[in-house]
């Protein structure tokens, strides 16, 4: 496995800029998620690493080797697609052994290796089947086995779970995560599903409109989003306006200590869990909408200053009464700035 370095990559198609100034480093053995809405440039970034797109500017390197102009077939990469893209003219075993055949490995060896990988992925014994006869989950495992068989320097996964149903997705997610960690694979994982990115990836690069907005561990991205876009795209965020003066953040309806935050107007991200229903709470709110979700009730409430925020309520304590009192956990607030540069961290309220 290798370290992947993407340096200042820019890709322009005709007149549209697909990615702009993308720089990412994936250390050996790390799984980096590329997360963002469709059209944000995450797939273009992946294809640049694969070699199917040559960047207009910038370079791609595996370890210290510049591969920017190396054709994909000479890069030694593993590729897994949402559509599996298995070769229907070959058996499952031949699919997995295809890359080894291209490398001139002798038939007995490649067959043994294919069996070994299928076994590892929990689908041993399917070697002689036709790919079309397998279920979606099995096909995806074959696709993965095929990509891993060549011991790629980097594994590239393009929305590999999008076609699967929710339950299978959850199971495969856990298995795949463990397997990739075990094998120490360097991987780029493209997805638009934040839950998938959070559970699978060591770090996440949130992309928007061709830029990288933030790179960080799932926890960093969630708890300390660099800007309003990241806050909104990853999880649910209540974006509030406030003013910091003399080490205190004034939100209008509540004042909380905020030592260290820059003075002046501030944009504050409050996750739903920053609010808690409490009969002794100091913030009176009116519940305007509630959606029962099983283990919690997702509610929209109106703060005294007419701002609407989303939070979770406990179904057990919730009454039909529209008036609820809340307390705010100041340590769960995060002061950011909508205009913040993509790669700089927002200021954080010290715990």
């Amino acid at each position: 496995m290798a370290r992947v370095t993407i340096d200042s990559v820019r890709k322009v198609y005709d007149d549209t800029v697909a990615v702009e100034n993308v720089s990412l480093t994936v250390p050996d053995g790390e799984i980096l998620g590329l997360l963002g809405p469709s059209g944000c440039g995450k797939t273009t970034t992946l294809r640049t690493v694969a070699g199917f797109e040559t960047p207009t500017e910038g370079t791609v390197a595996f370890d210290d080797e510049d591969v920017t102009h190396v054709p994909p077939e000479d890069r030694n990469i593993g590729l897994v697609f949402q559509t599996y893209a298995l070769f229907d003219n070959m058996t499952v075993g031949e699919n997995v052994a295809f890359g080894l055949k291209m490398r001139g490995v002798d038939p007995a060896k490649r067959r043994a290796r294919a069996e070994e990988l299928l076994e590892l992925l929990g689908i041993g014994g399917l070697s002689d089947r036709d790919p079309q006869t397998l279920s979606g989950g099995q096909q995806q495992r074959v696709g993965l086995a095929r990509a891993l068989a060549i011991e790629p320097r980097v594994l590239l996964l393009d929305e590999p779970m999008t076609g699967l149903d929710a339950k299978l997705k959850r199971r495969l997610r856990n298995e795949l995560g463990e397997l990739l960690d075990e094998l120490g694979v360097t991987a780029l994982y493209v997805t638009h599903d934040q839950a998938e990115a959070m559970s699978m990836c060591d770090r996440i690069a949130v992309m928007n409109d061709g830029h990288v907005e933030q790179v960080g561990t799932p926890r960093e991205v969630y708890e300390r989003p660099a800007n309003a876009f990241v806050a909104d795209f990853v999880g649910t965020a209540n974006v509030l306006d406030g003013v910091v003066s003399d080490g205190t953040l004034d939100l209008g309806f509540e004042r909380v200590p905020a030592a260290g935050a820059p003075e002046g107007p501030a944009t504050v991200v409050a996750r739903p869990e920053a609010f808690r229903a409490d009969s002794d709470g100091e913030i009176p709110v009116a519940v305007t909408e509630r959606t029962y979700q099983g283990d919690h009730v997702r509610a929209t409430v109106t703060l005294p200053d007419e701002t609407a925020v989303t939070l979770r309520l406990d179904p057990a304590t919730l009454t039909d009464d529209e008036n609820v009192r809340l307390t705010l956990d100041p340590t769960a607030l995060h002061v950011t700035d909508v205009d913040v540069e993509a790669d700089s961290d927002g200021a954080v309220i010290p715990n």
Partner: protein
Amino acid sequence: MTALSRRFGRPAVTLVLLVTVTFLIAPVALTIVGSFAREWTGVFPAGFVTFRNWAEVLGLADSIGSQRSMGWDPLVVLPVGDGLTLMAPAELLFSVGLALGGVLINLVVGVPIAYAVSRYEFRGKEWVNAVSVLPLVPGVILGVAFLRAYPVLSGTSFGLIVGYSLLKAPFMVMAVQSEFESMPLRQLEESARSLGASWPRTFLTVVVPNARSGIVSGAIICWTLAAAEFNFSYVVWAKGTQPLALFLQRHISNSTFTKAAAAVSMFFCIVVAITLLLQAFGTRGFDTRGT
């Protein structure tokens, strides 16, 4: 209005279907029946059952009159006893060979261009597509053009093969394209290349074998249409063994009605055999548009 539409709409539409199918198929059935008759002068053919018409058409029996019967050529000599020579009817074999030659060229030119159009984006793609799937030149015009451009070659087998291949190429391109369009081409190509296969190798060992059924059905369609091509053959053919379509025309114009019926029936048999072959490959017959 409402009641009328509900009551008569469907039966009327079904009736159109039935009448048209009858119009299309009844003469086919009558021809086959008539080919076994001794004479056909009244309402229906009469004097069953004789195989004389078939035998004469196939050149197995001497025929009376000016028409030549079909010649027979040795096909292969089997190593049985003193050497058993398998004979084959010349026109049939000649047409089979010509059409096969056309199909071979169609494969070489049609499969790649179908892939280019289905897989890639490029400037002028719409025009490339239009030129490759629309039969732009009708057989008669192409025949005239061949006579002018290649006065010596046009009447030869080679000329016929090249002409057939251009005339029937659109059918190959369409059949293969509709197959390609049902495949995740980009992902297949990129998967194979990521695994280390060069692009030509990817095309030959992954893309083409995966599109096998479309290619086979395209080949069969092109073969049938080339074997049946009359207009071009009529204009350019000069001498020697006649292509099948000209052989049919000779019988239709000159032979007795029952014998012409036998010749046409023989052609039906070929078409049916090809259609069955087509279905055996599990494809969709002449429905090359894809569904």
